[in-house]
């Protein structure tokens, strides 16, 4: 489909939304710079290179690390389930859910982009279960029947006033413009849900192959409650989220949280080593880990493999001039911004996501901030080439230009008489002029000057 035109979608965005996104993204970018600078100083590049190398090492030895993780998780009493695509991942979760709870049961969820990627909530609801998002942003998104517009800050596009309106409409609290009042009201509502919950579902930020421990970073405490309060915890992760050793964690946690929100470390870092042991009082009785491929092994063997290094910090989105103006929804995919431009066509195919590759000025800011040094602009260029070859993107016609630029005599003639206006196909000029003035033709000045003096 040649329809994911981010530019067209962005025009439908309310200006207040664009303002919220720009302000917040710019704030995250500044905080990121400050924290990384004070943490690593001149060693920052070295730290990023080391992280990139570690992830590449994992990806190059993924099979071995997955087997090691499986073994060590089982030793910890974690039951593993493998899912090759979104459908089997949903089916696997549903099967576990059915074994432990009846329709109508409340399932509390920690924030997880993977569950968004495989559209898990819809599947659970379809079977009569009641999934409740417990991350504050995701909670608002769910109430609004909206989509997250950012992988770290799901309601980056909303204001306090928007949230107040939503909460009032759902009877969570009286309209208020005070963020703390709103947050406390959500907390109260969510506590009620945590008490009801029969199952908790969470994502995973890092899984340690060496020890079989699952690591989750969070700020709101909702992940701790989601993973420990209900008697059953289902953790879900993409197969690329492995780190070899616990010794890798300090680097990766610091890079992740600094790059995401400018925090040197988040309020909570959970290291989950299995379900409740016989001498423990807290924790779930049973813990499943669902490992989802969903295209990842295919991506790992292609030209966009480095995108699997991604630790989902969102720094590329925050710094991206296009994302700042377009907001996440314009990309029409769970993954937006520079990450999404590469990941979405790789997950869903160029046929459906072909035009999204155009939503980049190739400025390179994303690569500059990426904590694992993913060469995003290079991959966007490759994808544009692939989209064109597969006829999956709207083709812009440069044939006349290329033909002229291949024939210097004709080129010189055209430059003298019409500048580029005669060379470019008319449509691009028309489209250029819609937004800005077309330059005056003063190019002949150079060749005339050069000829006159020699």
């Amino acid at each position, binding site marked *: 489909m040649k329809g994911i035109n981010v530019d067209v979608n962005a025009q439908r965005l309310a200006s207040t939304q664009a303002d919220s996104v720009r302000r917040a993204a710019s704030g995250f970018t500044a905080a990121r710079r400050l924290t990384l600078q004070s943490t690593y100083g001149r060693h920052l590049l070295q730290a990023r290179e080391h992280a990139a190398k570690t992830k590449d090492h994992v990806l190059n030895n993924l099979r071995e690390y997955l087997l090691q993780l499986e073994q060590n998780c089982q030793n910890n009493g974690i039951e593993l389930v493998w899912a090759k695509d979104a459908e089997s991942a949903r089916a696997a979760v549903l099967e576990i859910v059915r074994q432990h709870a009846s329709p109508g049961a409340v399932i509390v969820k920690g924030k997880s982009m993977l569950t968004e990627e495989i559209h898990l909530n819809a599947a659970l609801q379809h079977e009569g279960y009641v999934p409740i998002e417990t991350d504050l942003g995701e909670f608002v998104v769910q109430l609004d029947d909206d989509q997250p517009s950012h992988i770290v800050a799901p309601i980056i596009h909303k204001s306090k006033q928007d949230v107040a309106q939503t909460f009032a409409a759902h009877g969570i609290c009286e309209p208020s413009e005070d963020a703390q009042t709103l947050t406390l009201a959500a907390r109260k509502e969510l506590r009620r849900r945590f008490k009801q919950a029969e199952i908790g579902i969470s994502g995973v930020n890092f899984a340690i192959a060496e020890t079989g421990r699952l690591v989750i970073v969070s700020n709101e405490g909702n992940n701790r409650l989601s993973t420990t309060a209900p008697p059953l915890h289902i953790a879900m992760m993409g197969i690329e989220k492995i780190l070899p050793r616990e010794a890798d964690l300090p680097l990766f946690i610091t890079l992740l949280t600094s790059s995401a929100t400018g925090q040197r470390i988040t309020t909570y870092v959970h290291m989950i080593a299995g379900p409740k042991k016989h001498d423990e009082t807290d924790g779930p009785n049973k813990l499943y880990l669902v490992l989802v491929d969903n295209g990842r092994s295919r991506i790992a063997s292609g030209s966009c493999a480095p995108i699997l290094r991604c630790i989902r910090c969102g720094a590329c989105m925050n710094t991206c001039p296009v994302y700042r103006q377009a907001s996440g929804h314009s990309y029409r995919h769970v993954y937006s911004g520079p990450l999404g431009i590469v990941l979405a066509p790789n997950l869903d195919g160029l046929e459906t996501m072909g035009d999204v*590759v155009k939503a980049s000025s190739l400025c390179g800011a994303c690569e500059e901030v990426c904590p694992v040094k993913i060469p995003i602009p290079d991959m966007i260029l490759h*994808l544009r080439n692939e989209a064109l070859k597969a006829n999956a993107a709207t083709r812009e016609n*440069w044939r006349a230009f290329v033909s002229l630029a291949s024939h210097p005599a004709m080129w010189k003639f055209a430059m003298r008489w019409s500048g580029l206006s005669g060379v470019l196909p008319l449509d691009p000029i028309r*489209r*250029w002029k819609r*937004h800005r003035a077309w330059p005056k033709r003063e190019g002949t000045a150079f060749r005339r000057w050069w000829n006159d003096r020699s």
Partner: protein
Amino acid sequence: MLTCLCDAFYGEVGIAAVKVLEHLGCKVEFPLDQTCCGQPPFNNGDWESARKLAARTIELFSGDVPVVVPSSSCAAMLRDGCRSLFGKAMSNVFELSEFVLNVLKIESWPGDSIQAQRVAFHRACHGRVLGLGDSQERLLQMVPNLRLVPFEDADQCCGFGGAFAIGQGFLSSKIGLEKLRRICETGVETFASGDMGCLMHLRGLIEKHRLPVRAVHYCQVLSSTIS
């Protein structure tokens, strides 16, 4: 190398670049058959056409003579882009400031001073690919009486992006206007940059929206100090 945008629209920028190089003691040659480096089709995904144009550019400029380009993006195309297209980069290509500072090793500007002036500088993004850092600003700052003025979000792109400016015109112009808003906030009358792609886009926005600021290539500022 003149670049196709200067060949078509901005001859005076080419003249200024030659004047700067000659003033610093270089003998400049201008192969008359040059056209375009292939960047527009390359960024559009049309690598077949891009190879055609890049290959003839490489042939035309082959040899040991350094090729100096007054544009970060064309220089990046010939260095980095050619690596994607052919597996190897053109190593004798330099962006103008890079050549002046790193090859000619100029440490102070041997020109006249200008009338005291505050100037903002927009760094073209392809300087990232070239690893230019602040070389263009450093060169400009050598001009006596010229003061560079910082502005908010200076590291953000101007929204040109070649094909992006045409295909995603709404976003492109919004990004550009944000850049110009930040520059205008400083109250400068002039800002400089090092890529006529960015400047064509920003000048087009300035003209359409009647903004009170003038956009020039930094080599025009340098050449104005040469008597």
